[in-house]
């Protein structure tokens, strides 16, 4: 068995932070297995994948073609399979993003191997053991990979990229662009009018629930998020179901699972299914008028009171801190 393959993810030719997380995980797994790390980057002509070497890739394969500017599943599958034919990888790693959640199972099916999806930890002891949160984080499986190879998708933000530069070789390859038979093609990427950070990727998330009373009041959260720096506004299931916020913003068991460094739960009582989606945040702050709300049981810091009085003050104080820093 030779090596660990890390699949890089890009947007507009620039590697995303999750790519460095994946290479970091691949490096640490490869070290314990006593093998090397290859990284593969697929994207437009302008793709710059050299950053992967900083985080420990020994070899970087770049497949740059403007037809791969957007995620085209069949191109990615083909590129990775062709690479995997030349080397029998022990593990193929990618991030459990929208792309990785689509690509990972396709690769596992075509490689005929198990997929360990959305793992938060990889332990190589005797063989490979992964931790997989299930029931939206209410429990965690420790699974041993008994197959000779596997595909592992890693939950974004679950590990910190570590720089360990290598003098890696960069190798440019060509993607075979045709595939027999019918395929789904990504025709366009619609970006929102205002570039928006995704709750699953944001380092800070400010979430609101029914306590906000009216959809228009989410502007208080938008203001707080703006003051905090790169931050996303999330929402509880109740307000998404009520049509106040988009489903893409929902944090919880039927929404997104987030692990930001700082999470604000504002006017959210803390139903089990919501707690499941945010309990791995590093620091949780809750603001609620009900001192017995379950959210205070998981929060590191809480303020009891009227959020409409507290939020403007909080935003103001954070602006002051940021201005002084």
């Amino acid at each position: 068995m030779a090596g660990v393959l890390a699949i890089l993810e890009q947007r507009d030719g620039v590697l995303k932070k999750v790519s460095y997380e994946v290479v970091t995980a691949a490096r640490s797994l490869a070290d314990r297995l006593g093998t090397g790390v290859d990284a593969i980057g697929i994207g437009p002509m302008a793709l710059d994948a050299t950053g992967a070497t900083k985080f420990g890739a020994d070899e970087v394969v770049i497949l740059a073609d403007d037809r791969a500017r957007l995620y085209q599943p069949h191109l990615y599958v083909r590129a990775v399979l062709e690479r995997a034919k030349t080397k029998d990888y022990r593990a193929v790693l990618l991030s459990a993003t929208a792309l990785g959640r689509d690509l990972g199972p396709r690769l596992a099916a075509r490689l005929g191997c198990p997929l360990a999806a959305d793992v938060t930890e990889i332990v190589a002891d005797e063989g490979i053991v992964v931790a997989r949160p299930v029931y939206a984080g209410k429990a965690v499986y420790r699974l041993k990979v008994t197959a000779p190879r596997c595909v592992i998708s890693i939950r974004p933000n679950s590990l910190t990229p570590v720089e360990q530069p290598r003098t890696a070789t960069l190798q440019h390859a060509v993607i075979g662009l045709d595939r027999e038979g019918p395929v789904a093609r990504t025709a366009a990427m619609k970006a929102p009018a205002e570039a928006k950070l995704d709750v699953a990727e944001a380092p800070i998330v400010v979430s609101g629930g029914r306590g906000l009373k009216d959809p228009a009041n989410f502007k208080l959260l938008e203001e707080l998020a703006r003051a905090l720096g790169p931050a996303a506004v999330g929402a509880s299931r109740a307000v998404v179901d009520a049509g106040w916020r988009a489903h893409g913003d929902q944090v919880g068991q039927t929404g997104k699972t987030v692990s930001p460094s700082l999470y604000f739960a504002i006017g959210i009582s803390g139903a089990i299914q919501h707690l499941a989606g945010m309990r791995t945040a590093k620091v949780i702050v809750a603001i609620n008028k009900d001192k017995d709300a379950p959210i205070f049981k998981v929060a590191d810091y809480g303020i009891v009171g009227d959020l409409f009085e507290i939020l403007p003050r909080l935003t103001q104080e954070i602006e002051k801190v940021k201005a002084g820093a």
Partner: protein
Amino acid sequence: MCIKRVPDTETRIKIAADGRSIDESGVKFVLNPYDEYAVEEALRRKEAVGSGEVVVIALGSDAAQETIRTALAMGADRGVLLKTDQRVHDPLVIARALVAELEGGGHDLILFGKLAIDDSSHAIGPMVAELLGLPCVSAVARLAVSDGKGTAEREVEGGVEVVEFPLPAVLTADKGLNEPRYPALKGIMAAKKKPLEVKPVSVEVGGLEVLELVLPPERKPGRIVGEGPEAVPALIQALRTEAKVL
């Protein structure tokens, strides 16, 4: 339509005595919420075309018959239970068992929920598609189908991908695709008479072995820093000096 029986989202999870699975006593099981969107979409396709058949397939124990009946009560025509009591953790094993049933079925659309809320592998749809050699779009939030082809939108980080595909195809449904109907009493009564075929299947063990299932570490108890806006400076102080996140 491939569906799954899962614990309700409000379930408090307890670990069973074997340390490798959940204690199912007192747990309420439901049709996987994302599968409801898939069932609804299948029914709407049939209604739009005015003909066709909606088949519901589930893999699992006998208890999953009840879940299939829920989909039949919503309006699906018939059900198939691929019956096994084995717990499978390797999604490829499940995908292969479904493919054996789906192959040669002549389906125009094969629909799944984007993930099952219990094991959240979000894997089976794309795996089945690759094994069958069919086009696939996962996590579909908006869909238009006509004249043997379709356009789907999927929400990704920082945008929405617009994907075009020919039929037949595999799609997995995200929340927001539609508003699933509630089974009416009439539907529930009718569902009892609809055909539900039980086919025992033997599944492989697969390449993932459960060492243990554990509860996540408890969070360290936090504290209420105060009441009302006057507590804001104390919070800022704690975030800066203790938590060091500001």
